[in-house]
């Protein structure tokens, strides 16, 4: 029996007097595709920052494959096999698309802080980079500076950097935010491909994406998870309907935003 | 005993002067994210302006006009210089002010010459206020003390009780949010930059005749003020105050200690004839702020009161 890929035990976070996360318990099994939804300000991004090590926990514990990761630095957590993306594009703006992805590949291939190797001669790094660029469909833009990419492509690059290190647990923070319909469709396709055989934790506002993609969904309201379950259970849960008043409740009923 | 009292008194005055400089620097930094490298050059301008104004009029007029002049120059620098560079990021802004410090130094040399000018304490303040342990205490130092305290109260009032103060306070704690407040940000920036420079100018007016007014005064004062803001924690007014006091008292006290390192660490076998042993505490005084900086960094990298990584 494997330990869960990700386990949150009684996670708390407060900023001064403001309690943002108040006791979150969550288990995500290996290979599961889990989505977190909730109204604005519920603490979804904070939760991501807690798990990935950007913020420190006020109380509680986070485990990755059974090992405690709370209290560790982001780069340590990343090396243990957890990778995340950001809500706003967080890329290396002055480098080319290819260099961006290549930076994401380096550590996982064992090149650490190496200063005695020419990066151009690292064949397996070049191939892995090319492979990822092809997978996400950025091959034709590989030599453009990242800052010159159109918005949707920057979001794609964001995901490409996230998966480049080959982490087993992938966390995506609103990957389709601000995208058009067709762009969203392509992004979902990409996420499905990228998450194959891996554990996926995703925060998303687009209910169409959430209900199409997730195996299980957790609903976060005011820093607490009020419901966790399969999409069909969540859809019918009265508490969830109550949290999402009015217009948004319709989206939960299956109409894509 | 008397050494301690005098050191403490002079240290506090020097510390207040440092705070007058570092508070302006901190305000500008918190608001705009720019560390004004030319800040000490504005301090120097304040002293030179006061000298010139005193030549044609009186010290009391200089006390008010010189800081205003410096503030106006600061506003001009912000409007026509800094604002243009802003788009290129903080490093470019810092480098711009670095170049500006160069320029002001050279211009001061052209206008007022390469040697020091005879900027003196006004006659009306040039008397002994009291005698302590048989030593005379000049009134001007106490005057400096009161000017600094008056400035502190004024600053406190501005920050706590006025609308602009509220905006600045918001900027101190949430630097990224100022832009969303809906205020005329460029105007606020220009005002804050000008006010910060005026504070530096005021420090120059009262410090220039206490120390020496020469073209090197900016280069001497600058690094110490930067140490104060980093030790205090960049962007923290309280931190800057504590650090300014600490460095002021530390440096002033050290000057009056004639003991050598051998006297202190003699029990460890340090010989007074050795090179390290014969160093006196007073000769180390100019290095103390920088030693403190390194020590603080090892213990608490964000500075005394700093909690945000900038």
């Amino acid at each position, binding site marked *: 029996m494997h330990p869960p890929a990700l386990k949150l035990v009684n996670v708390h976070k407060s900023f001064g007097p403001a309690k943002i996360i108040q006791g979150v318990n969550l288990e995500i099994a290996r290979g599961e595709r889990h989505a977190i939804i909730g109204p604005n300000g519920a603490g979804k991004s904070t939760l991501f920052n807690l798990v990935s090590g950007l913020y420190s926990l006020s109380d509680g514990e986070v485990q990755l494959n059974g090992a405690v990761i709370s209290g560790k630095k982001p780069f340590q957590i*990343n090396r243990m096999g957890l990778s*995340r993306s950001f809500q706003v594009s967080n890329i*290396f703006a002055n480098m080319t698309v290819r260099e961006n992805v290549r930076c994401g590949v380096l550590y996982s291939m064992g090149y650490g802080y190496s200063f005695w190797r020419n990066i151009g001669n690292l064949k397996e790094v070049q191939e892995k980079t090319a492979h990822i660029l092809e997978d996400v469909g950025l091959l034709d833009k590989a030599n453009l500076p990242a800052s010159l990419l159109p918005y949707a492509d920057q979001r794609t690059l964001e995901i490409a950097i996230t998966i480049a290190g080959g982490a087993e647990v992938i966390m995506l923070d609103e990957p389709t935010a601000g995208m058009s319909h067709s762009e969203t469709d392509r992004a979902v396709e990409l996420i499905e491909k990228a998450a194959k055989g891996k554990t996926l934790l995703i925060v998303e506002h687009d209910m169409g994406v959430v209900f199409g993609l997730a195996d299980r969904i957790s609903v976060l309201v005011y820093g607490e998870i009020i419901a966790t379950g399969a999409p069909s259970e969540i859809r019918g849960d009265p508490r969830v309907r109550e949290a999402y008043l009015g217009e948004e409740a319709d989206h939960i009923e299956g109409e894509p935003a | 005993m008397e050494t301690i009292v005098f050191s403490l008194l002079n240290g506090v005055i020097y510390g207040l002067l440092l705070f007058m400089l570092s508070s302006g620097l901190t305000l500008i930094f918190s608001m705009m994210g720019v560390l004004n490298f030319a800040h000490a050059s504005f301090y120097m301008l304040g002293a030179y302006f006061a000298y010139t104004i005193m030549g044609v009029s009186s010290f009391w007029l200089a006390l008010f006009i010189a800081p205003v002049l410096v503030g106006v120059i600061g506003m001009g620098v912000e409007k026509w210089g800094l604002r243009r560079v802003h788009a290129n990021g903080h490093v470019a802004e810092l480098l711009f002010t670095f170049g500006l410090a160069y320029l002001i130094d050279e211009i001061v040399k052209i206008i007022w010459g390469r040697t020091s000018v005879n900027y003196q304490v006004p006659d009306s303040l040039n008397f002994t206020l009291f005698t302590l342990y048989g030593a005379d205490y000049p009134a001007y130092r106490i005057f400096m003390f009161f000017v600094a305290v008056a400035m502190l109260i004024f600053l406190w009032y501005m920050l706590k009780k006025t609308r602009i103060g509220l905006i600045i306070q918001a900027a101190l704690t949430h630097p990224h949010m100022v832009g969303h407040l809906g205020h005329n940000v460029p105007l606020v920036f220009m005002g804050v930059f000008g006010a910060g420079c005026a504070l530096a100018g005021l420090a120059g007016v009262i410090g220039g005749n206490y120390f020496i007014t020469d073209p090197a005064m900016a280069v001497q004062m600058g690094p110490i003020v930067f140490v104060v803001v980093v030790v205090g924690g960049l962007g923290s007014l309280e931190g800057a105050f504590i650090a300014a006091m600490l460095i002021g008292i530390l440096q002033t006290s050290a000057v009056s200690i004639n003991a050598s390192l051998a006297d202190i660490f003699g029990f460890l076998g340090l010989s007074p004839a050795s090179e390290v042993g014969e160093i006196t505490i007073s000769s180390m005084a100019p290095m103390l702020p920088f030693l403190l900086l390194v020590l603080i960094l090892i213990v608490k990298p964000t500075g005394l009161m700093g909690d945000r990584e900038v």
Partner: protein
Amino acid sequence: MTDMTTNSAALAPSSGEKFRERVLPFILFGLVLIVIPFFGPSRTTMTLLNHIGINIVFALSFNMLLGRAGLLTFGHAVYLGLGGYFCVHILNWIDAADGGFWGNLPVFSMPVFGFAMGALAGAVIGWPSCRRAGTAFAMISLGVAELMAAFAYMFDSLFGGEMGISGDRMAGPEFLGLSLGPLEEVYWFIAFWTFLGVVAMYMFTRTPLGKLSEATRDNPERVQFIGYNPTRVRYLVFIFAGAFAGMAGGMSAVQDEIFTPESLSLLPSGAILIAAYVGGIRYFSGPIMGAIVMTYMGSNLSDYTAGWLLYLGIMFICVVMFLPDGIAGIVFGFWRGIRSPDRGHLMGKWAQQLAGVFLLAIGIIVFVEVAFRWSEGYGEVWEPFGIALPHDAILTWIIGIIPFVAGVAVLRHVTRKQEEV
């Protein structure tokens, strides 16, 4: 799998491109270094060339921090100074030694020791400094520089007090038949190490650490989420930057045979910052150009005018405000421009800008020169081309103001037209 390899091959630049961009410039650089002595430069020129070589290595090492890692330092001369001091001491040990390790050590190897000392200094000083980045890092570098300079003035036995310490480069065994006595032989020494330093620092940019330093400059937050500790990246780069600065110090110890505590102070640190920035920190070759131009101007213009530092300040501010890519930006922009189909239009624009800058420069020079002579108070009058320009003559003001205003007008006109397009 076969299509994968073609893809990765298509991604990487072709071997022809690689040669043109990464090998050819260095071959040309090496050739220039070899050819220079055959023009029979004078002793003064030779000394200048040697200093240019030293400053090229120094400026590039500075740019490892500012341009490549985004770390602004006001105290980079500390590492050059410590490396150089160490080498002057070694020169003396070699001189005093009778056989043994020091007795058999050729002076030619000094930059290696400078490199080691610079790396050591970087490792010690970098440890507390690199815990911060950005503005705090810049201020810390300033404080450390002040501290080191004060230390140097305090310990006479190590640093020789105000006078510094000197050595003799002709001591020890010869290497490659170079006694290092005549300046021409020193030139070959400098040329050799300059070339090596430039190539090594270029290769550093191509390593994983070099790439990561750029990534950390662009986005330190994200670097943490691809498995790297940004503090560690900065620290390692800092050690290398210190090492190459120390190497320049070793070159300087042999060229000048003396080091004074002033070499650790803020002045040389500021000078190299200006040289690298004016050259263009976003290009690898920028600091090289900056070092050449600035060293040349520093040794020549300072003879012509007392206002040299003022001109330097004005130039630096103008570069920060209007030309953030520096000289290299102009050179490469020009190169791209004359090969673009739009070149006729561009040429016109450049001609106008050049005219504007020229007019502006006339105005500024008139003001500065007249002001300096007035300030010195000896009643000396500036007489360019035989025209006397005293500070109180109307002619002086006309000659100053009209070109200044005209220059500003021309430049604004060009900028405005550009914005309309």
